[in-house]
């Protein structure tokens, strides 16, 4: 075993451990913010495993889309509605928990047997890291053309919808304006207009407060 293989084995172990730990954390932690951040950790560990499999495009796309977009959006949503509230302990919560555990274990065993039973058609050749984009592109435009085009049309629709939503000028309804607020006024002392001729010297100096600074 040379250096590169050793490094690969160690990093595979580390990444798997990180991924499983983070995934368990997502499910088991009660603090939803921690769960969201740990979800990002899971995605990044998955990207690392992709890298070890020489699938560097998939790895970068994983980081870009799942960590950079999906996870950020999840955290964003959590932060916008953040309300720290302790869970009230439910009576007989153990029934639910054990039921969940049974379902999860069942799913896990089902998937494991599926993985073990299926005769995988593994090719022995090592995927070349440098040309993975080329290979992916070729597959997209030959045998995976229909799903690729469908996905792109879906994304285009989402894009157009987003642009239309963003470009729509929001006009507040007229009726909202029509509700007249009562005009609030301060009680004002009535102006004394009596007796003073406009030119009289003793009154002009400070007759109006706004004139004082002139």
């Amino acid at each position, binding site marked *: 075993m*040379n*250096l590169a293989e050793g490094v690969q084995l160690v990093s595979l172990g580390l990444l798997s451990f990180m991924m499983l730990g983070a995934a368990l954390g997502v499910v088991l932690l009660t603090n939803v*913010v921690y769960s969201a*951040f740990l979800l*990002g950790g899971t995605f*990044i560990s998955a990207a690392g495993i992709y890298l070890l499999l020489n699938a*560097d*495009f998939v790895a*970068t*796309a994983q*980081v*870009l889309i799942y*960590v*950079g*977009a999906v*996870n*950020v*959006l999840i*955290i*964003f949503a959590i*932060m*916008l509605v*953040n309300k720290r509230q302790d869970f009230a302990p439910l009576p007989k919560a153990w029934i639910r928990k054990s039921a969940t555990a049974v379902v999860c274990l069942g799913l896990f065993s089902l998937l494991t047997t599926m993985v073990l039973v299926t005769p995988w058609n593994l090719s022995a050749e090592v995927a070349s*890291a*440098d*040309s*993975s*984009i*080329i290979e992916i592109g070729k597959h997209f435009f030959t045998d995976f053309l229909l799903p690729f085009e469908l996905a792109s049309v879906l994304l285009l629709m989402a894009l157009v919808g*987003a*642009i239309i939503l*963003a*470009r729509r000028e929001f006009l507040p309804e007229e009726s909202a304006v029509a509700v007249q607020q009562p005009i609030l006024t301060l009680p004002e002392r009535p102006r004394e207009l009596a007796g003073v001729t406009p030119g009289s010297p003793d009154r002009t100096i400070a007759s109006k407060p706004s004139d004082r600074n002139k």
Partner: protein
Amino acid sequence: MYTYGRKRRAEHMEGIDLQQTFIRSLTELGIPSGAAKAIWMPLPMLLMIIGATVGVLVTVWLERKISAAAQQRIGPEYIGPLGVLAPVADGLKLIFKEDTVPAKSDPLLFTLGPVIVVIPVFLSYLIVPFGQNLVITNVSMGVLLWISLSSVVPIGLLMSGYASNNKYSLLGGLRAAAQSISYEIPLALAVLAVAMMSNSLSTVDIVDQQSGYGILGWNIWRQPIGFLIFWIAALAECERIPFDLPEAEEELVAGYQTEYSGMKFALFYLGSYVNLVLSALLVAVLYLGGWESPIPTSLLANLAGVSETSAWLEIVDAAVGITMTLLKAYFLVFIAILLRWTVPRVRIDQLLDLGWKFLLPVSLVNLLLTAALKIAFPVAFGG
């Protein structure tokens, strides 16, 4: 199409290859080649981290001096000649400053936030080339790696904003995340147009595709709109004025940095400047011909009658390459600083309007135009 790029690269493959030379000299000393490789590996990374940090110090000094000049001040003067040690003094001060954690905050996330912000930025230096072989890894993902790494940063910002237990921090973090999500898309589309022309995402291939004609071959002439979109989006990603809403002093104190002090604040500070230099370097690589000088060195060598394979020419070539990359990058940093003292900060709705309603459609049109031109004029647009 791809083999074309490969061939051109193979033609250029001669030139300095420090790695091969280093490993060969170590194996001649009697060290097994695997161990020699293992010794080599951390060296360029260490060099890059040191280089990035020194680059930040230079940028901070430049920022202070240029800002001073734009306001008819002198700027730092007494700390070292012309004040060049001022950023070092800043750093030392921040190292020795007390590291406070606010009450009722989340200490774990509070510490993890700046770390998550800084690590991807430094990792992105992996793909910045300073010469044909003067790059840490010439991965085929290249620019995409940078984009995906920089998309991790908002998680760190959100984390520190949340953990600070401060409404200004939280608002700053949310703004930072919204901003970098919305400007990542035009950025990626602008990069995509460049990648389409060079048939590769690798930064080395992108520079190679611009080489040969000196300043006339640079991508800025073929992608003027893309260049502007990329620069605007990069400024927004770096949270520079006019897009510095996440840390707008007048509204949010300092945004997500409000509660930070000492070394954790220094990490944010370092990260933002490393990110600025990185963006400038990438603009230089993508649009301004990377390490190519405005007049091709091979042309000058031919004129002077020097053979292309002579050893000292290769050294001169490498030196010119590094200098050119840095010069272009620092010119862009200079523009960014000048913009800082020219343009007022935009409002959050103006920011999102600019990103979604202007840059996104324009970059889509730019991509479409590039594709059409590539089909119409395959010679000029890298068919």
